[in-house]
């Protein structure tokens, strides 16, 4: 068997471009040393931006590299979202890493490598390419979590994340090997074709799906695979936490969607049961456990668990509408998180970062701009209309109701109400508690502009929701035949 023709590389141009840039910048960094971190960060941001342009302008609806790499509207949507998350996380951490004395040129490069892994994940059309992408992003994230290696917390976070991540990778591989063993293929479309007719799937396949879904649930930090989230969020440096809570979540959720909607689309009733359980547990645990948190990063960890529960609520609908709603949800979630983490990164008193929720007290008086945007974001995260967060929830509930998942929706609404408590508590602390310490002003223009973008998006989403909805619609329709 000869492979003489050169494969079509063009659809993979964004990934190829990124990996080349990664290596070039790595060499550049090695020669210039850690002083060049700032420059490299901006170069990474620039090249991420270019990559997103390549994604949007590049060819689509192509499957290359002997059917293991797919580019469609769905992958483009996810990639653009991932890149937005990565750019935001990097831009907001620029001054932070300098202040914290962790200015190493590897930092932006690891972020870029992780982003590359995510993009490979969402373009995967095969269990093997899925795994390769997943490992690339995870490995970079493990390192990032432990990046501040001199503090115990950060090392602990990195180690916990690594060990549990390895466990989840093991589950994924175990599930994938079951699938391969029982179906004889790893290709998504071939697997899908097997379940088109209404034949009963074998038990091996179902157990394989359960294992794979468990691994996916770990990546999106859904209950009961969420245990790492609070510890890792709290232990990692805040800028890494910001990154962890945005781009990887989007990538993992996109991969989750593709997995259950492409290869296992014929088995909706089977996987739906598992996703429903995970979703309900995440929503409930996410909102209940957050109530007692005092550390804002831990709180955001539980908040993200809860939000992933809501996204999975849309996913469990098993319809195109469900996919659409999850995409909209993730988009809105990402934009809200940008603002939230800018504020958390601004919690600096006398040169020291503080992470306690009570440290926010009096922010309304000390820094009205920060406080008003943070307050709006909290309202939005709680899902209060007319802010963007409300629409995210609205669409997932709509999709779930249309699929008849009434009980799940009731659970969702109840946990959303409970969740509103701790979001609003932050608003209360900011505006009604006596001020303790005054934060240093966020000193970089990039942070202020990110905060403004996040705030403006949240407030004015209601004015023009149509572009996002129609984009999500295209993306969703591209993976469902």
């Amino acid at each position, binding site marked *: *068997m000869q492979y003489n023709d050169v494969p079509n590389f063009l659809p993979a141009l964004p990934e190829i471009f990124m990996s080349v840039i990664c290596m070039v910048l790595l060499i550049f960094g090695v020669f210039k040393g850690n002083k060049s971190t700032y420059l490299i960060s901006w170069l990474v941001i620039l090249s991420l931006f270019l990559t997103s342009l390549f994604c949007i302008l590049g060819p689509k609806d192509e499957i290359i590299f002997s059917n293991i790499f797919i580019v469609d509207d769905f992958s483009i949507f996810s990639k653009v979202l991932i890149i937005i998350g990565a750019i935001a996380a990097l831009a907001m951490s620029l001054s932070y890493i300098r202040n914290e004395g962790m200015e190493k040129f590897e930092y932006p490069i690891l972020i870029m*490598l992780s982003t590359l*892994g995510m993009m490979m994940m969402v373009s995967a059309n095969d269990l093997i390419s899925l795994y*390769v992408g997943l490992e690339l992003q995870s490995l970079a994230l493990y390192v990032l979590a432990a990046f501040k290696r001199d503090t115990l917390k950060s090392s602990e976070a990195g180690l916990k994340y690594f060990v549990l991540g390895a466990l989840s990778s093991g589950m994924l591989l175990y599930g994938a090997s079951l699938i391969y063993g029982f179906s*004889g293929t790893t290709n998504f479309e071939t697997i899908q*074709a097997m379940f088109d007719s209404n034949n009963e799937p*074998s*038990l091996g396949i179902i*157990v394989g799906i359960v294992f794979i879904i468990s691994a996916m649930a770990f990546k999106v930090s859904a209950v009961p695979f969420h245990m790492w989230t609070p510890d890792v969020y709290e232990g990692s440096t805040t800028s890494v936490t910001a990154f962890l809570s945005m781009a990887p979540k989007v990538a993992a959720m996109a991969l989750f969607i593709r997995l259950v909607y492409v290869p296992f689309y014929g088995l909706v009733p089977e996987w739906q049961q598992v996703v429903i359980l995970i979703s309900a547990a995440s929503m409930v645990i996410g909102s209940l456990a957050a109530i007692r948190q005092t550390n804002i990063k831990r709180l955001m960890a539980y908040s993200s668990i809860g939000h992933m529960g809501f996204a999975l609520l849309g996913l469990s609908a098993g319809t195109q509408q469900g996919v659409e709603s999850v995409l909209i949800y993730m988009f809105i979630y990402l934009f809200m998180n940008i603002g939230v983490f800018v504020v958390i990164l601004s919690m600096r008193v006398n040169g020291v970062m503080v992470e306690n929720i009570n440290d926010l007290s009096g922010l309304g008086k000390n820094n009205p701009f920060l406080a008003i945007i943070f307050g709006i974001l909290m309202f939005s995260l709680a899902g209060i209309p007319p802010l963007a967060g409300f629409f995210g929830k609205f669409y997932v509930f709509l999709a779930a109701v249309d699929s008849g998942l009434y009980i799940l929706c009731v659970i969702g609404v109840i946990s959303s109400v409970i969740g509103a408590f701790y979001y609003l508590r932050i608003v209360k602390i900011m505006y009604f508690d006596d001020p303790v310490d005054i934060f240093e002003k966020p000193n970089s223009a990039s942070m202020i502009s990110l905060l403004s973008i996040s705030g403006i998006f949240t407030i004015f989403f209601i004015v023009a929701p149509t572009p996002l909805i129609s984009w999500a619609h295209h993306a969703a329709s591209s993976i469902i035949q």
Partner: protein
Amino acid sequence: MIIQSIAFYIFAGIIIASAIMVISAKNPVHSVLFLILAFFNGAGLFVLVGAEFLAMIMVIVYVGAVAVLFMFVVMMLDINFVELRQGFLQYLPIGLLIGLILLVELILILSSQFEDPQILAVSSLPIPPIEEVENTKALGNVLYTKYIYLFQSGGLILLTAMIGAIVLTLRSRPGIKKQVIAKQVSRKREDSVEIKKVTPGAGV
């Protein structure tokens, strides 16, 4: 055929047994040694299915490099493993229960049906018979062509791992003497040696 079967069961049995020993041995050095045994038997299984290249790689990479590295680390670190195992017995029953349930369930799976064998035949790439193309060549044929994407991605993963290892461990310690070859070579005689005329009997 019967010999093959016997060999398979011997190899598989030893793998399972040594895997149990890896986690139950008290001495960590013993654990690593059992791990090496498991690797060797794994290589044997590869040979059984005709993947002699993978068998060799297994022995060279896992036994020759990874396991030996493990051994070094285990021997150099002073970790009280007994202390780490505290609470082991406390959690043993429930852990065992869950493990057993999982085991039973996985055994149950074996009884289930395979998917349509016809699709199986179409979907999987026919392995070239060993008589026509040898194992190494067959791998080489697809590695840079069909699996170029995965191969390169694997490279990126390794790169990331390398960067990670360096970032997390490399420290620039000031005041450490390092050997700089260029400096050594470019040294001149005048820089290091000074000739003094010493008058005999006058002292320095």
